[in-house]
């Protein structure tokens, strides 16, 4: 079942859709919130305790033989997994901030628009929030449907041999990396028909 919400993109009303209570949700929450808890800085962003995350991670790895890791895909991990119901219950208490982060990024973009449409891979739309959250989705406005289906959401990782706890409180560091990586992508020929809006917000 999809969790729906309303948003505005360039004065047009859209319906945002997130595949909640699905393997999509268990996969993305596990990949970004559980595994990326520290490097993607979700601990500092949402204040979820490391003990809770640690115990979820242990259960997933030991009880469910979870295969999710860096570079994993839904098809290679959660889709064939038979522990969906158990895993869904396990992440119940931590998934809300992740889902809210996606919604807020999309809903609040109109205040200071920093989104882009493009033609590449599975997605065709990206938004970057000031806190460095990236949401990639697919816009379908054929037959006036005006739907936006969320494909993924993440923050870029900060890797260092030093303790990075404090660095992870700095949203602007995540934001800068997200913006730079997407500008690199937009400058590659893999991304076609790129339309960045508002360009000044992509620069500043």
């Amino acid at each position: 079942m999809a969790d729906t919400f309303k948003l505005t993109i360039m004065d047009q009303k859209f319906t945002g859709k997130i595949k909640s209570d699905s393997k999509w949700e268990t996969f993305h929450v596990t990949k970004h919130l559980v595994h990326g808890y520290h490097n993607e800085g979700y601990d500092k962003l949402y204040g979820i305790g490391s003990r809770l995350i640690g115990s979820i991670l242990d259960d997933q790895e030991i009880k469910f033989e979870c295969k999710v890791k860096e570079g994993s895909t839904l098809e290679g991990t959660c889709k064939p997994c038979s522990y969906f119901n158990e895993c869904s219950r396990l992440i119940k208490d931590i998934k809300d901030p992740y889902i809210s982060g996606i919604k807020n990024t999309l809903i609040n973009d109109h205040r200071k628009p920093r989104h882009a449409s493009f033609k590449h891979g599975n997605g065709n739309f990206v938004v970057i929030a000031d806190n460095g959250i990236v949401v990639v989705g697919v816009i379908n406005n054929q037959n006036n449907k005006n739907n936006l289906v969320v494909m993924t959401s993440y923050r870029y990782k900060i890797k260092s041999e030093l303790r990075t706890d404090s660095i992870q409180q700095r949203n602007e560091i995540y934001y800068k990396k997200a913006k730079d990586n997407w500008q690199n992508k937009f400058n590659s020929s893999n991304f076609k028909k790129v339309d960045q809006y508002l360009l000044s917000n992509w620069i500043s």
Partner: protein
Amino acid sequence: MILNRDKLASLVMGCMNSISLCIEYSFDQSIADDDYSYELVFDETLFDIMTLERTISNLDEENPFHKEVDFIYESFEKIIDSNNTPFFKRLTDYENACYSNSILENHFNDLKNSLENGDELISNDNAADQLFDILRLKDKAGLFASETIITKRLKTVLNTEIFVTYSKSIDNYIIKHFNTFKILSDYIIGYRNNHLIPNSSEYNWWYSFHSLTSENLIQNLEAYVLQNESLAKSIGQKLKNLDLINKLQHSVKDSLVYAREVSEKLNDIIDETFMPDIVSSEPIPDVWGEESHISIPDSEPIPSDHEMNDRFYDIFEVNKQAIMQAIEVIEADDIDEQKRKETVAILYLMLGENNEALKRLDED
């Protein structure tokens, strides 16, 4: 370098933002001893300014933002002056931790994991992000190790020798994994364009990647002939060693040309594997730099270029997939039966599956 005003404006704006963040962090009393945020921002600001400096020094015309640039340099100079020895000691610790081989190893492992994933072959998005981490480290280390007004000033307070060593170390990694980088050529070009890397001898590595467009395809045609000859020679030798050469009615080269025509993926991996035989630069981008001389390789490739070498086996799983797919296509293709089994046998030889190759050649 021909001026691209919008991009230059974006670099100037980026530097202004970094300077302002640097100043904000330098006054932040809440920064604890184990908090390296300021060092990170300083490092990033230095990189942004050096990227700007590189761009300006390669401009063919007057910089329209000279006032802003002067302000940026002066502000950064003030930031350097306002910091004391303990800060630069901490900065050295930070640089040592970031520009370390273990972090590099970590980035490469993540890149490899992303590429090994089936879906990533379609979009490469995750791999692209891992790649950008590595490219950024390469670019930063190269710039920080270079001799410019800014680095000369920095050398008075920071040991920049680490960047010289790191720059060499990262280049070694890249040579070792070159085929992986070739797969992601378009993203390297994206990084290069975004950071306005000039097309000069100093940065020729960045221009050794090209997209397969119709324009450079024509340029590469001659190189393709050489690749086929090289590969045919290598496979022919293998067939002789296995005493299979007499079983062929068509030349190995003809079969290779046919296989490459029917399978785009196979064509690409041969192209990747025999990279040194290919014209190594794309047609010059319309913005930066002078066109460098593109030479067609000698007609006789050096021996190391025409073996199924490490580069091929480096991403063997990816290449195996492409060859298996080519076999499937060829087996379903409407061609002469003898040519089909010879081509399939050759492809199995490329996979190292000699018995399967023999079986195919012996098929009635």
